[in-house]
């Protein structure tokens, strides 16, 4: 009897793991919504949703780029530093107006992304090492440009951070549009397909004549540009440029969102909807614990549990 029972367990378990891998992150979000509706006062207010969404928007934007990089079997640790760099550069060039400042930010971010991509694609440095260098160097540069926090008083920047259209903050709109755009690129463009092929099997992609180096460089540039957008938006919301702490540990939040969302670190697959949901899941989890006055350390432990669950589910799928 006991034997028969044992035999049926593994089959059910793989099925559950597969389900978790595909829908777990959405189920998690749904669960947190339901639980909070019951136990958290004023959870269902529009104001609360707005706050949550505004907080999570930068993470989503960074995670989109991260998902692309992870899809090529890479990782980008420099996104937090790029956010800080974006903040410094914004502060320095805001005197010329918002648009020129943003252009300069884009140039800096693209340069960092290009450096990452070139190290990975041409010199063959492992992505984790290449982007580690830019993570340290990028934040260093940000601090050289702007050594301490600086208040920014620019109406255009302020409205970017706190303005809205029909009650929906710009931040949320921008994040949504970018998510849609990235999902479209992954699904419908040659670039998206080539990216996945390179992530799944680089030698095969190379022999199939794909422009491997170009794709890799573009991916890292896009990732850096997205991080810069997040950096500018966060700065706009703060109305201050804070290169010391802006974007700290952002790389880890972004990787968490991507992994929890069901994109494997082994490359070849990118799940944009899952990535967005992954970021939302972590945000809701953190918010829930904070609203119930649990210390921040609890939040970290909860995050760790979510990550472990996600990795466990992914492993189950990997073994088929």
């Amino acid at each position: 009897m006991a034997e028969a029972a044992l035999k049926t367990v593994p089959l059910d378990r793989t099925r559950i793991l597969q389900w978790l891998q595909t829908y777990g992150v959405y189920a998690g979000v749904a669960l947190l919504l339901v639980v909070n509706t019951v136990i958290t006062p004023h959870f269902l207010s529009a104001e609360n949703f707005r706050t949550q969404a505004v907080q999570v928007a930068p993470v989503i934007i960074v995670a989109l780029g991260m998902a692309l990089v992870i899809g090529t079997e890479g990782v980008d640790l420099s996104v937090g530093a790029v956010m800080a760099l974006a903040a410094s550069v914004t502060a320095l060039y805001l005197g010329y107006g918002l648009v020129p400042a943003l252009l300069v930010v884009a140039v800096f971010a693209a340069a960092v992304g290009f450096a990452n991509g070139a190290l990975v694609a041409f010199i063959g440095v492992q992505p984790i090492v290449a982007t580690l260098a830019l993570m340290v160097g990028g934040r260093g540069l940000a601090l050289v440009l702007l050594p301490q926090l600086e208040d920014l008083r620019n109406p255009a920047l302020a409205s970017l951070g706190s303005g809205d259209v029909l009650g929906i903050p710009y931040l949320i709109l921008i994040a949504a549009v970018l998510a849609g755009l990235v999902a479209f690129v992954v699904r419908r463009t040659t670039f998206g397909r080539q990216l996945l092929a390179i992530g799944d099997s680089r030698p095969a992609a190379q022999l199939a004549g794909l422009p491997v180096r170009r794709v890799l460089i573009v991916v890292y540039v896009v990732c850096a540009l997205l991080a810069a957008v997040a950096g500018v938006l966060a700065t706009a919301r703060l109305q201050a440029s804070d290169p010391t702490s802006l974007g700290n540990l952002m790389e880890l939040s972004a990787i968490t969102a991507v992994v929890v969302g069901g994109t494997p670190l082994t490359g070849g697959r990118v799940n944009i909807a899952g990535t967005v949901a992954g970021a939302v899941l972590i945000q809701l989890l953190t918010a829930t614990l904070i609203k119930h006055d649990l210390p921040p350390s609890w939040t970290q432990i909860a995050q760790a549990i979510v990550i472990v669950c996600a990795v466990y589910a992914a492993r189950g799928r990997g073994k088929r």
Partner: protein
Amino acid sequence: MAPPAEVLAVRGLSKTFPGVRALDDVDLTLHAGEVHALIGENGAGKSTLIKLLTGVHRPDAGDIVFLGRDVSFATPLEAQRAGISTIYQEVNLIPLLSVARNLFLGREPRNRLGLLDFARMNREAEEALRAYGVRVDVRRPLRSLGVGAQQMVALARAVASEARIVIMDEPTSSLEPREVETLFSVIRRLRDEGIAVIYVSHRLDELYAVCDTVTVLRDGRRVHHGRLAELDRLSLVSTMLGRELGEVRKEGLTKFTGDHHATDGQPVLEASELTVPHQLHGVSVSIRPGEVVGLGGLLGSGRTETAKAISGALPTTSGTVMVAGAPLRRGSTPAAIRAGISLLPEDRKSEGIVPGLSVRENISLAVLPRLSRFGLVSEARVDSIVDTFIERLRIKASSPQQKVGELSGGNQQKVLLARWLAMNPKVLLLDEPTRGIDVGAKAEVQKLVDELAADGLGVLLISSDLEELIEGSDRVVVLKDGAVVGELAGDEVTEDKLMRTIAGHAPDRDAVEEAATDG
């Protein structure tokens, strides 16, 4: 004398995977000192049977009786400890560890302090390997050895762990003929020691050279078992394929018609004096439209390197490649592909297919930019190309959305061919196009190569299967140690001539000189 003891008795073994009955009520009996051939097309159930025996999967029904006891292994390690060792097609050792460490992995000799006894390990490893004809410094990392030598280490490891049954899954797919001989002598020694061997291979020569008994699987069922000597080759093939004997005989063992009509026109490909340090020394090959040129030679003679150098995947230090009279930029795969050169790589799994992507995406991978406008993929045009080739090459997949990694080897190869044919190439470089794929798919691929050549494509064919090389090629350029040592054309294209040229008897001075002046 009593008959040899029964080592393994399998009764009514069945296994179902989602949607597939992989193994259906299969029996298998193995005696001590028996070398048993396990054969069948891809998807016949060989791998499943092996995986059930070695504890990778659990059977749905049936018994495995090993040494008289009912067993059910939970893991491959458990099976190995009990005495069933397996050597897989791909070497599964640890490339960065030393040869000796690999050999003793998991059962390292220890000294009194419980630390690894390296001196003893190295000494014993050296002794053990000498028996397999491998003379290397056992302290070197495994990856510094050739694939063949690595395979021998894997074999030595499997045998050294006091196995009662050794399962060999296509052990010769990366061995040179000399190494195959060593392997056979090892197998004979195992037999004399009373160890049973299950030998899986697609190469009929080898089966007849070394196996006593045979089990033929087809579609998950056992369709034949008995002594191998009582079954001639054609019957074996027809049993495997499930086709009528007359039909097979009529068509010969390969699907090549053997009579191409190479036009006398300008060569579509002219590679001359290709040089890659330590690998190629001035190799020249030319191919006319409609011609199949074979590359002969042993493992490591530079056949794969020649194909890769032509396709730009291996950077050359000197030499030129002309496609239809126009020179090719050196060392650029995309440039070679644009010029009309397509390479079907030898290592299908790691350099060919993109396993996680679908059949559809794999087929359209190279041609995608041509099916796109401003970087946007036209799904309709992709669908039409994909459907065309799935039908034309008879690719068997549950749908175009199925992952290529889940297909059989033969179908993976067809997907790769489709990827290249979609590009309308001028020259096809085929590196071991039928290695490791089942007999049916092999015949289809061979037939296809014939048709493509008849359509005017230039084909470079690399094959370790002599029969395939001889029957498939109009001309054979023979390589040895990275240089052309001869060229066979017309009536000279025979196994005998080829082997003599490889062996260095230089039977035909004219041919050598012709090859040299040709470039």
